[in-house]
């Protein structure tokens, strides 16, 4: 290459590579071999996933629109969906999964290092802890750390506002497939359970309110008290027994005691209204309803009864229509090829890296070659001209032939002697 300062073009790079072709080929071949070896040696990772869509109607119910506030913001709904999916990964579920498939085993999901290297790393970490480079090891952190590692191998990311992809990575393809299926089942179970629990959480306070309203309504005696007062007395006796037991431990302000007191009052009321059901009433404490007129109490009771009915209907219909709230767009598939390492990719990296490294080394070598003393400078020092250069030819193979007519013919011989 000539000594010049302008930037090298593609032709210069090619000529450089050709000039040091042996080195280029050797380094590229070595690099390719190294990367292919790494592809064969590195621990494999398999991944499989499923794609699920949670419809908007999961968060809606026409029957209870007046009771439950519905969200319409798409961003908020997306966040709720993702939250529900991640909510399924409870510590108990993770522990169960790990116990079933051995997911907490050392080296699972991480680098499978040789034992000597692992021991060395452990010693280095201990030394680091003594020098304060790492935090001290606390008891109980191991399980938490293992859960964290397992959780990091479960990938959840949204494809759009309603659709999510949930995947799992593991060195064993069978485990990957089975765990992904279990993740799907757990997510669906959690979604249904949360919806049911939300409805139940709304229904229970309404039921309690109904019972407290019924206490104040004289026109609505308990049918049982009129037909079988003995049943009411027995329940009353049972309630009073529970109260005696609980009051030894708790005060009257305790919610359970308050609830039992309300129940006692209701039962007494029914008995007093029932024929032949008279009984001494215990001292009423903390009346829940006070100062309401019977008409307003009846109106409230009717309204709440209607809402209660709607909630019960919603709960019942949910059991029958569970599949209408989500759709499985892509089921988990058994992974046949590893996610990592990919042999073609490694081969490409090996070739590319080898070429780059060899070109770099060729450039360095060329730089030092060019910076050497040249024959012209030596000739200058001697004060003589350069008469020419001996051409560099490959002596081990045929010389490149010149075009026809370019070569000078050999001297013609006459009687075995050259023509003078």
């Amino acid at each position: 290459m000539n000594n010049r300062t302008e930037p090298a073009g593609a032709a210069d790079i090619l000529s450089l590579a050709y000039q040091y072709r042996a080195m280029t080929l050797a380094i590229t071949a070595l690099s390719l071999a190294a990367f292919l070896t790494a592809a064969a040696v590195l621990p494999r990772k398999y991944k499989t996933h499923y794609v699920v869509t949670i419809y908007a109607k999961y968060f809606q119910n026409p029957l209870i629109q007046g009771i439950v506030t519905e969200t319409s913001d798409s961003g908020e709904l997306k966040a709720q969906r993702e939250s529900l999916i991640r909510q399924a990964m409870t510590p108990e579920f993770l522990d169960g999964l790990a116990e079933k498939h051995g997911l907490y085993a050392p080296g699972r999901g991480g680098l499978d290092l040789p034992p000597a290297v692992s021991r060395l790393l452990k010693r280095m970490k201990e030394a680091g802890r003594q020098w304060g480079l790492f935090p001290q090891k606390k008891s109980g952190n191991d399980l938490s750390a293992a859960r964290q590692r397992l959780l990091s191998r479960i990938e959840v990311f949204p494809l759009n506002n309603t659709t999510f992809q949930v995947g799992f990575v593991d060195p064993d393809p069978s485990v990957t497939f089975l765990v992904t299926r279990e993740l799907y089942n757990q997510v669906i179970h959690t979604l249904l359970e949360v919806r049911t629990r939300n409805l139940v959480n709304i229904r229970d306070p309404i039921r309690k309110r109904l019972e407290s309203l019924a206490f104040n309504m004289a026109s609505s005696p308990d049918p049982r008290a009129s037909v079988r007062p003995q049943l009411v007395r027995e329940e009353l006796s049972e309630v009073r027994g529970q109260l005696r037991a609980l009051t030894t431990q708790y005060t009257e302000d305790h919610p359970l005691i308050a609830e039992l007191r309300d129940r006692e009052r209701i039962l007494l009321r029914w008995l007093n209204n029932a024929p032949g059901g008279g009984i001494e009433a215990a001292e009423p404490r903390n009346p829940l309803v006070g100062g309401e007129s019977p008409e307003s109490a009846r109106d409230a009771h009717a309204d709440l009864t209607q809402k209660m009915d709607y909630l019960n209907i919603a709960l019942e219909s949910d059991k029958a229509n569970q599949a209408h709230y989500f759709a499985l767009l892509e089921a988990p598939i058994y992974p046949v090829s590893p996610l990592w390492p990919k042999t073609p990719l490694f081969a490409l990296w090996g070739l590319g890296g080898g070429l780059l490294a060899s070109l770099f080394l060729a450039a360095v070598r060329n730089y030092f070659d060019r910076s050497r003393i040249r024959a012209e400078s030596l000739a200058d020092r001697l004060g003589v001209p350069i008469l020419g250069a001996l051409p560099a030819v490959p002596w081990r193979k045929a010389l490149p032939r010149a075009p026809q007519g370019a070569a000078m013919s050999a001297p013609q011989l006459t009687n075995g002697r050259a023509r003078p």
Partner: protein
Amino acid sequence: MISQLTSSSMVRTAYNPAKGERLKDFIRYTEVRELVYKIADLQRRPQDAFSSLAVLSLYPSEGKTLLCAALAAAYAETCRTRVLAVDTTTMRNPKSLSLKECIDPADPMIDFISLTDHRNGESEVSDVIHAPAGVAFESEVMDRGFPGLGTPPINEQYLVTKVTRNGAKQYGLVILDTAPLTARNKNNFDPALVSRLSDASVLVIGPRALSAADMPERLQALKDSGIRLIGAVSNEEFSQ
């Protein structure tokens, strides 16, 4: 005289036909012919005329023998005149090129002499050496005034001078292949002596010379040696 010179007194053994053919290709299909043109051009100048040319190098395996062989063959072919190739080397690396291997004995335009073989009595006495060089020969040798020599080494000096003097009369060009200037083998013909006894010298500069740490000292010694250097030939791109 010419017929005497073409007698079997010229010892040419161990010719390698493959190397000979490769050398012919080298001459025909590369730029080595340009070198011949320049040397022939220099030779024609009245003030620079020379009949004998010593090929020097500072270190071994720089390309001297290749240049000698190529120069001899190309000069004979180009200038249509006879050439005498003289090998003054002694010890040689077995992997190095030998002038004997490259000179085709069937080529009537090129004759070959190994001064070492002559000195060791391993070949028949050559006519070039045997023929008288003239009365003024002895005085010429003494007049050169070789530095540091009390009694000149007659054998080497005698042989070389006879070859160059007689060869100049009979050949268009006498090319002398020498040992490296840094060689320590005492059996070698002193390349500096050979060069001083030749009409002109050419220095082959190879990769080793360019990377030598003591290059400045060597160059200075070359300048001070009284050698008539007419040019240098670059062999940086070493042929493999």
